[in-house]
Each structure stands twice: as structure tokens, then as C-alpha cells.
């Protein structure tokens, strides 16, 4: 059945990593779902590119971090922090597109 990422993640957040990058973190509730997402590459360059409307060349990297069952994607900010037209100086409220991620799981 189809499930939402909200069923299996305890932290979904965004923040600047310096004024030119936005870094997105998902921390899963348990190792099982961390591995499920990692092994199926559910959070991929393609997905991040689509959700954030950035070219894959604007994705600095996607890193799976086992010590806290987390995955991190870092992308180019649409506009440098604080430049004219910016809407989120700290980049702390840019996580919403990640909330729409769904996946298939039995039970």
C-alpha cells in the first residue's frame, strides 16, 4: 500500500548551508525505513530536481548518513540568502515539497 514519508520520518527540515546552498534533511524513525529508502533510492537526484525545480547540476550531493538514519540533499539556493527577491533568509521553511513523498510498503 501507498504510505506517506510522514509515517516513517521524525524530522524533515531545510536550512542554509552557507548563503548559497540549501540543505534538506530527512531522519527516519528506524533503520528499516532508512534502508528501504536508501536501497530503493526513493530520494534521488531526479526526485529532488523535480520537487525543487532545479537542474541536476544544481544538486551538490545526496548523502545517506547511517549514524542517525538520515539522508541529506544539498541544492543551490534559488537566490543567495538575503539577495533581492529572497523569501527565506535562513532557508528554514523550504522543506514542504519533501512532505509529499510517498512510497509502497506491505502492511
Amino acid at each position: 500500500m501507498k504510505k506517506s514519508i510522514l509515517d516513517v520520518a521524525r524530522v524533515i527540515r531545510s536550512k542554509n548551508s552557507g548563503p548559497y546552498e540549501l540543505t534538506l534533511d530527512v531522519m527516519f524513525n528506524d533503520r528499516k525505513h532508512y534502508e528501504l529508502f536508501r536501497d530503493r533510492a526513493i530520494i534521488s537526484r531526479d526526485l529532488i530536481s523535480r520537487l525543487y525545480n532545479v537542474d541536476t547540476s544544481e544538486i551538490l550531493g545526496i548523502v545517506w548518513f547511517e549514524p542517525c538514519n538520515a539522508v541529506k540533499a544539498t541544492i543551490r539556493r534559488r537566490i543567495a540568502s538575503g539577495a533581492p527577491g529572497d523569501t527565506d533568509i535562513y532557508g528554514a521553511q523550504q522543506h514542504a515539497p519533501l512532505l509529499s513523498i510517498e512510497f509502497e510498503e506491505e502492511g
Partner: protein
Amino acid sequence: MSAREFRVLSPTAILGYGFPEESFRNGVAKKPDLIACDAGSTDPGPYYLGSGKSFTDRAFVKRDLTFMLVEGVRRGVPVVVGTAGGSGAAPHLAWCRSIIEEIAREQNLSFTMGVIASDVSKQTVKAALAAGRIQALPFVPTLDGKAIDESPHIVAQIGCEPLQKALAAGCNVVLAGRCYDPANFAALPIMKGFPEGLCLHMGKILECGAIAATPGSGADCAFATIFDDRFVLEALSPKRRFTRESAAAHTLYEKSDPYRLPGPGGLIDLTGCSFTDLGEGRVEVRGSRHEKTPAYWVKLEGSRRIGSRSLSIAGVRDPIMVRDIEPVLEAVRQQVRAMAGNTVAGELYFHVYGKNGVMGPGEPVRITTSHELGIVIEAISPTQEQADTLVSVTRSTLLHYGYPGRISTAGNLAFPFSPSDIRAGDVYGFSIYHLMQVDDPAGFPLEVVHVRNGAKS
């Protein structure tokens, strides 16, 4: 196993964010060998570095520093504060220094203070650029002479070496300009021979106060004990504890790669790192390594004035206007542009809360269901007068704009305030965010000040 240890108290995430006195007292009771605090960040944006102002409040910076200095000086515990005044350029350093001197007078304190400037001259940056000793970080525009000339303050994020020079010179209070956050915590234990990787990783966690504990807080203290092969984290409030997950999760915070954290002169490598719950809210960390880079690079930061800003804030409650907000704002923009012609320079921005005020064009929700919208009309112009004019004319045009199907013909906007328009002053943009190679990492000016019973001698 060696019994050697070094104990570090971190009062708060950023000097001026505050901390509960009880947590601080608990930390002092644990007999720290160092009280250290990071005092700044680039997170609040480019304004503060460029304008020379602090994003932290003077009264609270003084409050936090008073606790740190009084206890540190009385107990002979060194106090290290980096990124003075929020951005660490000369005016920020002078601001924080004057607060320390004021506290010294009021509390009748005697100490030796090392004040380290991290400003880099335009000439030095230009010479480095010409010599190929400047590197752009990802997504950062290439540096040019114009950006250097237009940046009133250029700072280098210094590493441990200048702090160590001050500590070795006998300073028991060290105040630094822009500084790599972990260095405030790591400089002294590294001098004492503890492993760089452990010291810097400990600093990376402690520089955020209790943010890495659970529940996290940027306004509470944290404590670390370093041994030769590990460090142990603990919170100082009964409300919080460190867990394996909270400590590990912090490694992700604000960084692009949690396994490799670059800093001045090298990087912290966490690929072999382990986090173990010791119980009672304590977590043990092992295996953090520091890898030196062949050349020593520091990060430079600069920002420049790009204009002046004016704002107006208003709400819209009419359902027809809410539905058609985009074409309405576009028509108003064109009408204003036609009226202002070439005489009023500047750019207009509409921040429409309830629609896409937070994510702008990246907002995935395309259909607005809010019954009301909040609009911030923003103008950025070369001069304040031009920005004021643009906002004023846009506000009045939008207020009375006759959009198709309008039934609410008395006015389109609800203003919460009079005056409706706000002068927001100078606007800055980041101009420099590059790495520069340096030959002498300790080569930043150190001034040693002897404070005796509150007076300089």
C-alpha cells in the same frame, strides 16, 4: 586508558541568545577547563557584516558575557569568544570589546585579554586573486575586483592558530573576529595535546549550545569532556539530555556532507566515527579524525550595499481579489512602472503570504485556498527616497486598483498600521564567499590588553 581529560563549558548557541542561570551554574560546578562561545553566523544574512552592526542584542550579549567573565576570571578558567558582534569585522569586534571592558569596570575584574582582528585588506584579497590563491565555493559567482572594492568589511574565518597564539601569550580572555565556530572550543585542548579530530568535532557540536541535545535549545548550555581517545557530551539542564541520535543528527545540521566537514586548513572526517549512549543523558563519541589539507585555506566573507529598501504591509480579504491576485499585482506593477517612468529607479517585489510568500516561484501548491492573503510590498532602489516613492505609489495604486469583477469598490487593502510604509534602510548582498590560501594561519593581528580592576593598563 589515560586519565587525562579536558572539560569544556558552552553556555549558549550564540552569545546573546541567553541561557538559564541554573544550567550555567551546573556547568561551572563541573570545573571546566574552558568556557567558550561562538558569537555569530552568516545565517541572518548579508546586512550585518556589511553594515557593521550586530544581529544580537547588546543587553543580552552583556548579560551572557557577565556570567562567563565573572566566573571565568574568578576561577582562572580561560574564556574564548569568536565571531565577535555577530559577523566578526572591525566594528563588531570593537562593539563586543567595549561590552567586555564595561563589564570589567562594573565587576572590578582583572585579566589579560587577547583581541584578534580577522579583517583582510582589499589589497591582500586582490593580490591573492591575482596570484590564483582564491577559490570559489559551490554556486558562488567568480570573484572580481569590483566585488572586493565594494565590500566595506572583508573577514577571514580564522582557525585555531590565532587563538592559540593569544592563549600562549598568557591571555585568559580571548575575543576574536570572524572565527571558525569549533575553533573557539578546540584551540586550547589541541594546545594541550588532545587529538585535533576529537577537539574539533566536540567544538562543532558544542558551538550550538544545547541544540544537539534533546529537546534541543539554542538558549541553554552544554558540556563536553575530552579524553585522549574520545569525548563525552552532556546537557546541564534536567530538562535535556544527549542521545546517540541527537548527537549524530547534529552532525547533519547546516552542512552539505555530514561525513566530511571542511574548515580552515583541513577537514573533520567522521567516516569512522561512533556515537554511544552512556546513559544519564551522556553520549560518547569516538573516531573523529582531522585531515590537514596540503595548503591552508580560510573562508573569506564580504557583503556590499546594493540599495535601500522600503516596505508596506497589508491584508486582502476580498475573495475575488484573492482569486485574481496574480494578474492584479502584475497590472499594478505595470501601471506603477508606466507612471514612475525612468525617474524612479528600483525593483518592486510582492511577497504574498497565504499564496507563495515563503517559497516564491518554488511553491508546489498552485491553488490557493486561503480566505485572506498578507502582502508585503517591497521596493529596493539606489536611494532611500526612490524606494519610498516606489512603495508609496504602489501602495496607493493597489489600494484603489479597479480590477475586473470588483465589487468591493472602497479599497482593496487592510493596513494594520499607520504609517503604512516602513523605511527599512540599507540593503546588502553577499559579495564574497570564497576560500583564500594563507601562508601563516596564525598571522592575524593580536592585541594584548591588560585589564586591572576594570581599568586598562
